[in-house]
C-alpha cells in the first residue's frame, strides 16, 4: 500500500538522497525546503543515512550561522571527469564507486579558444569541489575528453586543424600545472566507449563499437574489453572517412569526409531556407517534437553514418554498436536508418543480426568514461576495508577482466 508506514519512510529517504544528489551538498535546513519534509523527519533520516554510510555531514557556515552540510559519502578518492565538447563544457565529480556527486554544464561559444576554455575548466572544477565542501587534495586525478584524436603518449591532439587554436597545446600539462593533479586526456568517443563497455549498454559484450554522433562524428572501438586507440590515437575517427569524393574539403585537409556530410554545419545548412537559422540542438529538439524536415535530416545522417560504421564493423567484427552523442537523443529517428544501413551488409549479420542500440549513459557517457579512465590509472592506495562499497568491488573485477 502506498500509505503504509514503511513505504512512506522509504519514499522520504529517497527524497532526501535525491535532493542531496541533485544539488551536490545541502544543509539540513535546505533539505527541509527541498524535500518538503519536516525538520524532525529530515534530521532522523540524515542520522540513519549517516549511520549507514550513505551520506556524510560536516559543519559549515550559511548566512553567518553554523549549519550541517550533508553530502553523499565518498570513498577513498574522488575523480573529476571533464568533457570539452564543441558547444559545452561538462564537469562531473565522482567518488571511487563512480557515483557522481556534482555536475555542471557550461555552454561554450563556437570555436572556443583554448586559453579561455581551459581557464574556465580549472575554475569550474575548484568551484564545484568547494560547493561539496571538499578540496583539490581529495581528488586523485582528472580525465579530459576532447572531440579530436588524442595521442596517448603525449596527451596532445594528434591531427592539426580539427580544433582550431588547440593544436600545439599540451592540454594535460596546462591543467595539471593549474590544479597540481595527474591529468589523463583522451578522445571523447574513446571515453564514451570506455564508459558504455564497462558500465553501460555494451558491458556484457567483449567487442563493441561506440559511435558518437554529435557536432562531429567519432567512434570508440572496444576489442576484448579494451579500448583500441591506435598508434597516434586516430583509431575510430570515422568522421574523416571519405564518403563523397566530389565533396567539400574537410578541416583535416581531406576531401568529402563524413563530417562534411553529417557534421553540425552540414545538418543545419539544408534547413536554412525552410526553417531559418537553427542550431544542432534545435534540430534534435524539433525532430523529437515531430518536425518532418528536421527528422529527415537526422534520418539521412543516420543512414550515411551507418554505411561508414558498417565498414568499421567489417574490420572489427563487434557484437554490438552503441550509439551516443546529441543526435542519438532523437532515438529511433537516427537509429532505424543507421541499423538498416548496417543490416544491409550481409557478412556482418551472418550468425545473428548486429545489434545497434542507444547508449545507456546518454550525454553523461563521456564524463563517465573520463572518470573511469582516472580510476583505472590512479595510483590509489586501496585499503579493502575502506572501499567496501559494492561499486568498488565491481570495479575491481572489471579492471581484472580488462
Amino acid at each position, binding site marked *: 500500500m502506498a500509505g503504509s508506514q514503511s513505504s512512506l519512510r522509504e519514499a522520504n529517504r529517497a527524497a532526501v538522497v535525491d*535532493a542531496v544528489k541533485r*544539488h551536490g551538498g545541502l544543509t539540513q535546513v*535546505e*533539505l*527541509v*525546503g*527541498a524535500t518538503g519534509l519536516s525538520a524532525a523527519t529530515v534530521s532522523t533520516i540524515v542520522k540513519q543515512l549517516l549511520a549507514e554510510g550513505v551520506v556524510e555531514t560536516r559543519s559549515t557556515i*550559511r*548566512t553567518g550561522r553554523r549549519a550541517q552540510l550533508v553530502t553523499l559519502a565518498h570513498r577513498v578518492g574522488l575523480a573529476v571527469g571533464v568533457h570539452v565538447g*564543441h*558547444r559545452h*563544457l561538462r564537469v562531473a565529480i565522482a567518488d571511487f564507486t563512480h557515483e557522481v556527486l556534482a555536475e*555542471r*554544464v*557550461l*555552454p*561554450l*561559444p*563556437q*570555436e*572556443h*579558444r583554448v586559453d*579561455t576554455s581551459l581557464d*574556465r575548466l580549472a*575554475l*569550474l572544477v575548484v*568551484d*564545484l569541489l568547494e*560547493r561539496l565542501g571538499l578540496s583539490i587534495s581529495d581528488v586523485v586525478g582528472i580525465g579530459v575528453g576532447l*572531440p579530436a584524436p588524442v595521442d596517448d603518449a603525449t596527451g596532445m591532439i594528434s591531427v592539426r586543424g*580539427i*580544433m582550431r587554436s588547440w593544436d600545439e597545446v599540451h592540454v594535460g600539462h596546462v591543467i595539471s600545472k593549474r590544479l597540481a593533479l595527474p591529468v589523463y586526456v583522451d578522445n571523447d568517443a574513446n571515453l564514451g566507449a570506455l564508459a558504455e563497455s564497462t558500465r553501460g549498454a555494451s558491458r556484457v559484450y567483449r567487442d563493441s563499437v561506440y559511435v558518437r554522433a554529435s*557536432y*562531429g562524428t567519432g567512434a570508440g572501438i572496444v576489442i576484448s574489453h579494451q579500448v583500441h586507440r591506435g598508434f597516434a590515437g586516430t583509431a575510430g575517427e570515422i*568522421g574523416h572517412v571519405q564518403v563523397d569524393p566530389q*565533396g*567539400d*574539403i*574537410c*578541416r583535416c585537409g581531406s576531401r568529402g*569526409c563524413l*563530417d*562534411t556530410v553529417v*557534421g*553540425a*554545419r*552540414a545538418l543545419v*545548412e539544408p534547413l536554412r531556407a*525552410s*526553417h*531559418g*537559422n*537553427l*542550431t544542432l*540542438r*534545435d534540430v534534435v*529538439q*524539433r525532430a523529437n517534437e515531430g*518536425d518532418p*524536415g528536421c527528422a529527415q535530416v537526422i534520418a539521412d545522417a543516420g543512414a550515411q553514418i551507418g554505411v561508414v560504421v558498417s565498414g568499421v564493423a567489417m574490420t572489427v567484427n563487434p557484437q554490438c554498436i552503441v550509439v551516443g552523442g546529441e543526435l542519438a537523443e532523437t532515438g529511433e529517428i537516427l537509429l532505424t536508418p543507421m541499423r538498416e544501413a548496417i543490416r544491409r551488409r550481409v557478412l556482418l549479420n551472418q550468425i545473428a543480426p548486429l545489434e545497434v542500440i542507444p547508449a545507456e549513459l546518454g550525454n553523461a557517457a563521456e564524463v563517465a568514461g573520463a572518470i573511469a579512465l582516472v580510476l583505472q590509472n590512479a595510483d590509489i592506495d586501496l585499503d579493502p576495508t575502506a572501499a567496501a562499497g559494492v561499486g568498488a568491488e565491481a570495479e575491481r573485477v572489471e579492471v581484472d577482466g580488462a
Partner: protein
Amino acid sequence: MTGAPVHDGEQVRPMGATAPRVPLLAMKQITKRFNAVEALVGVDFEVYAHEVVALVGDNGAGKSTLAQIVSGVLTPDSGIIELAGEPATIPNPSAAHAAGIATVFQDLALCDNLDVTANLFLGREATAGGSFLRDGEMEQTTKRILRDLNSPIPSVKTQLHALSGGQRQSVAIARTLIGNPRIVVLDEPTAALSVAQTAEVLTLIERLRELGLGVILISHNMVDVRAVSDRIEVLRHGRNNGSFDATTASYESILAAITGATSYIKGDRAY
C-alpha cells in the same frame, strides 16, 4: 565540425522556423536624445521567438537605453515599435509587462528578507478574493517554474540572502516567467558571477530559448555572449554597427565592430 568555410561577419536575417516569420518585437528607426546626448540614432532592432539576441557595445553605446525602451522605462523620441507585427507603444513598465515583455535589471531588484516564492510573486500576489493570499498555489507555481528551468535552487522557502549570486540571478529570471512572457530582457546577467554560477545562468538562458521565448541579452563578456546567442547586434555611439550570426562570426569581427574598426554606418547616418 565541418569543412565548410567560415563567413566572418556574415550579415544574417534570422527567421523563426516553421512559424510565420513575424518578429515578436521589431523596433525601427528608434531615436532617443537627452539634450545634447544622442543615446540612440535611427536604431533598428528585432527579436524573434526561440531566439537569443545579444546586444553588445562599449559603455555609452546605447544598449541600456534600448533595453529601457523595450521594457517601458523610457519612451523613444521617434521611431516605430511593433509587437508581433502590430504597431504598438510601450509607455510604461506595466504596459511592457502586459505586452509580455519581462526585464531583469542588473541590480535584480529582489528582496533579501523574503523567500523565493514571495520574490517571484512580489507585487503580483495571487489572492483568493479580498486580501487572502493563495500561498499553496503560489508555491506550486514557483516549484513548477524552477523545475521547468532546471534551476539550481534547492528550496522555494529559502530566504534570498541565503542564496549565491548565480541562484539570485536564476530567481530573477524565474520571476520573469510569472505571467507567461514572450520576451525576456537580461541586463548583464553574468557580471560578477563565478564560473559555476555563470554555467547555471547560461544554461537557464538556453532553457528560456528552448521554451520558445525571445531573449535579449546585454553583456560585456564576449565568451558568454557567443556561447548562448543566435545573433549579435552591435551598437556604437547609439547607432547600429553590425549584425552577426553568433555561430559563424569571429571574436575579431565583433570586436572590430564594437571598437569602430569596421563600420556598417552608411552616408550621413554616421553623424
